[in-house]
C-alpha cells in the first residue's frame, strides 16, 4: 500500500500529459469534423471528393504510423519541412486522425435527419443557416451522441500511443516505474486511472443522452 501511495504523484504527473492531449484533441477535432462533414455533403463535387480521400487515408492507416510520420517524417518533406516538438506533433496527428472519424460520424448524423425536416423549415421561410442551427443540428447532436461517446473513450486510450515519442504520459511513466522497481503494481494502478477517466466520460455522456431523450 505504501508503495502504491509513493508512485501516485508520478503517475498523476503522467496523467496530466494524457489529459492535456485528450482535451486539446477533442476541442480541435470536433469542429474540424463538423467542418469536414459539411464539405462531405456539399454540392461541390471536388470538395466532396477531396474530403472523402482525406477520410480514406486517415482512417485507412494506423494512428501510430501517422504519429511517427508527423514527428519524424515532416522535417523531410520539401517546402513544409517543419520540425515539431513532440507535444505539438502529437496534437497535430491526433486532431487530423480524429477529425476524420468525427467527420464520418457527423455526416451519418446529418444524413439521418428526414428530408421532411428540411422541407418544413423551408416552407416556414427559414434560410440555410437558420435551418441548420435551429432545426437540424440539435437533432444531429442527439443522434451522434452514442458514437461520439464511443470515439471519445477510444481517444482516452489512444493517447497512450504518444509513448513512442518518448513523452512521459501515463503509460510511459508506468512502464518506467515497472522497470525501475521490478514491480508490476504500477500496471494495475494505470489500469485504474484509465478506468476512472472512462467512467467519468461514460457518466457525462449518459447524462447528455438523458437530457436529449426528453423529447422522445
Amino acid at each position, binding site marked *: 500500500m505504501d508503495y502504491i501511495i509513493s508512485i501516485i504523484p508520478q503517475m498523476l504527473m503522467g496523467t496530466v500529459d494524457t489529459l492535456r492531449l485528450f482535451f486539446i484533441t477533442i476541442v480541435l477535432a470536433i469542429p474540424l469534423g463538423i467542418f469536414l462533414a459539411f464539405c462531405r455533403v456539399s454540392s461541390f463535387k471536388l470538395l466532396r471528393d477531396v474530403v472523402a480521400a482525406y477520410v480514406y487515408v486517415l482512417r485507412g492507416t494506423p494512428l501510430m504510423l501517422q504519429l511517427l510520420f508527423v514527428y519524424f517524417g515532416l522535417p523531410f518533406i520539401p517546402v513544409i519541412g517543419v520540425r515539431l516538438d513532440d507535444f505539438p506533433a502529437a496534437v497535430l496527428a491526433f486532431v487530423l486522425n480524429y477529425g476524420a472519424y468525427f467527420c464520418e460520424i457527423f455526416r451519418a448524423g446529418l444524413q439521418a435527419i*428526414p428530408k*421532411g*425536416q428540411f*422541407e*418544413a423549415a*423551408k*416552407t*416556414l*421561410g*427559414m434560410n440555410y443557416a*437558420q435551418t441548420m442551427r*435551429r*432545426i437540424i443540428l*440539435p*437533432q444531429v447532436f*442527439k443522434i451522434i451522441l452514442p458514437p461520439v461517446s464511443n470515439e471519445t473513450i477510444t481517444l482516452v486510450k489512444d493517447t497512450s500511443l504518444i509513448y513512442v515519442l518518448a513523452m512521459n504520459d501515463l503509460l510511459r511513466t508506468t512502464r518506467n516505474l515497472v522497470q525501475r522497481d521490478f514491480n508490476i503494481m504500477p500496471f494495475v494502478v494505470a489500469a485504474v486511472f484509465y478506468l476512472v477517466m472512462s467512467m467519468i466520460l461514460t457518466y457525462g455522456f449518459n447524462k447528455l443522452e438523458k437530457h436529449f431523450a*426528453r*423529447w*422522445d
Partner: protein
Amino acid sequence: MRKIEAKSICKKFDDLEVLKSIDMTVDEGEVVAIIGPSGGGKSTFLRCLNKLETINGGTIIIDGETLVSTDENGNVRYADNSSRIACRMGMVFQQFNLFPHMTVLENLMEAPVHVQKRNPAEVQKEAEALLEKVGLLDKRDQYPLRLSGGQQQRVAIARALCMKPDIMLFDEPTSSLDPELTGEVLKTMRNLAEDHMTMVVVTHEMGFAREVATKVLFMADGYIQEQGSPEEIFGNPKNERLKSFLKSILK
C-alpha cells in the same frame, strides 16, 4: 380575387415526365381538392406551387406576384424574391414534419419569431389562440412525439397558420393516420374552410372533397383530366379515367 394561377406547368424527374401541362387557378376563399391515383403527380404539383420542387416549364403567379415564369425559349426563371413569395403559403405534410426537439408551443413560435421577427409575446398569444382553436392548448408544453398522429397533424396545421399565410396547401394530410384519427384532422380543416381560408388539398378523402371543396380537380398521368364542382365530378363524371377511378375507390 385570384390567389394562385398556374399555367402549363411541366415537371420532369430525369426522363420521367410527372407533370405534362397543368393549368389551375384558385380564387380567394376557394377550397380546391386534388384527387387521383397514386403516382399521378398530385403531390408533385402541390410541391411545385411553393418551390419544394422546381418546375421545368410554365408560370406560377401567387397573389398577383410572379413566382416563376418561362420565356418563349423555354428558360425557366424564378423571381429573386421567390422564397419570400413561396412562404406566404402554409404547408401541411403527410408526415407532419413537426420539429421533435421543440415543444408544441415552440414549434408554433419558431418561424414567426425567428423568420418574421415578430414580437415573441404577441406571437405566443396568437399561438395559444390557434392551439385553442385546434383543441390542443393543454398540450402546449408537450413534445410532438408524445402526441397521437392526429394531434401532431393538428399542431402542424396550427404551426402553418401561425405564419398568417394567405393560402394553405395540404399534401395528403390524413394519409398516414389511423381511420379513427382522420376525423379530428378533417374537422380542423373544415373549420378552416368555414373561416374562408384559401386551400389546396391533395387528398384521398372523397367525403371531404365532396362536402368541403368548392372545386375538385382529377389528376392522372400528368394531366388534369377533369375539373368541376363536387357535384359534377362525383355525380356526373364525364372522363373515362375518372369514372373508373371513382368506381374503384367507391367499391
